[in-house]
């Protein structure tokens, strides 16, 4: 006999993600999933935002890496609570990993939770973690063709941040090309240009995030599978 299922293969992940999102929304926490290649500047980008917010917005960070605690240590050095997930080989975070991290993390008073995904432009796109917003970070040194080459991740994001723009004079990176590609793939996405180490472009991203924080606890926008 044939059992007709017609169900999402990642339904189990999506169900846990929905629970994560409910938990976070209920606690008044806006959760942001940060995706990008290894070395695209995800941690530096998050650090720059945390420095910009200072104590004005209470934040926490979940760091996802295959191994090591370097990133969590960098965040803690800023006085921001951080929790490291080691995926031990897996190339992406999934919702159950985040659910486990949320059980460990004290969310009391936290308004903004960053989840830095494992460095990868492919797999993390498929896995909803329960975030409210998804930001894709792409550095100019990776090339202006990446949106077309890795469309799924760019289509799933609410914002795309081009980082390391201070390197642009030394690199053949056509900003208008990638912007046009992103607009085609994902007309609703907000686009930012950032040189995080210099703080350039950081206030604009911070303002965008703050707007989402203030639009109401139950309506942060939502991410996940489009």
């Amino acid at each position, binding site marked *: *006999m*044939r059992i007709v299922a017609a*169900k999402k293969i*990642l339904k189990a992940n999506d169900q846990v993600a929905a629970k994560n999102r409910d938990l976070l929304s209920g606690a008044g926490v806006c959760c942001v999933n940060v995706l990008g290649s290894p070395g695209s500047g995800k941690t530096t980008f998050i650090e720059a935002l945390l420095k910009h917010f200072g104590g004005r917005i209470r934040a926490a960070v979940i760091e996802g890496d295959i191994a090591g605690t370097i990133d969590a240590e960098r965040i803690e050095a800023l006085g921001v609570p951080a929790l490291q997930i080691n995926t031990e080989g897996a190339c992406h975070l999934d919702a159950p990993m985040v659910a486990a991290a949320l059980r460990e993390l004290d969310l009391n008073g936290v308004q903004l939770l960053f989840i830095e995904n494992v460095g990868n432009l492919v*797999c993390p796109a498929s896995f909803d973690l329960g975030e409210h917003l998804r930001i894709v970070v792409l550095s100019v040194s990776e090339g202006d063709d990446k949106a077309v080459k890795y469309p799924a991740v760019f289509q799933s994001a609410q914002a795309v941040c081009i980082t390391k723009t201070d390197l642009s004079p030394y690199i053949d990176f056509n900003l208008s090309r990638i912007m046009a590609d992103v607009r085609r*793939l994902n007309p609703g996405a907000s686009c930012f240009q950032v040189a995080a180490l210099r703080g350039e472009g950081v206030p604009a991203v911070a303002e965008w995030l703050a707007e989402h924080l203030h639009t109401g606890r139950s309506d942060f926008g939502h991410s996940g599978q489009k």
Partner: protein
Amino acid sequence: MHELAIAEAVIEQVQRELHRAGQRGRVHRVELSIGRLSGVNCDSLRFAFDLLAPGTIVEGATLHINQPTATCVCRACGKRTPIEELVVSCPACNSEQISIEGGRDLLLQSVDVEGPCESSPPRKF
């Protein structure tokens, strides 16, 4: 690695479907729908499925994968064109005023399982 996680999720989902339908027979076919723009490589998924299947309920089952196309919707000429890979302009009129719909599904479509009527032939009177 990605496809391994997907294959794992497929097997878990098949288990749940069988449980839900109250079936315990051998699974002989699993049908998936993997959109052309889903970012999942079907060859890798087959490889991962074959790697994980032994010792599970899908051991020996054949994997059938449909790959639905996406649709390029053009705001200039109004045409809807099925596409197998991502395009940056309308295949009909070359306009860049396009949006891409669908092609990203990851679905377990159906599971074929040996039911009681197949394992024991109908009784003759």
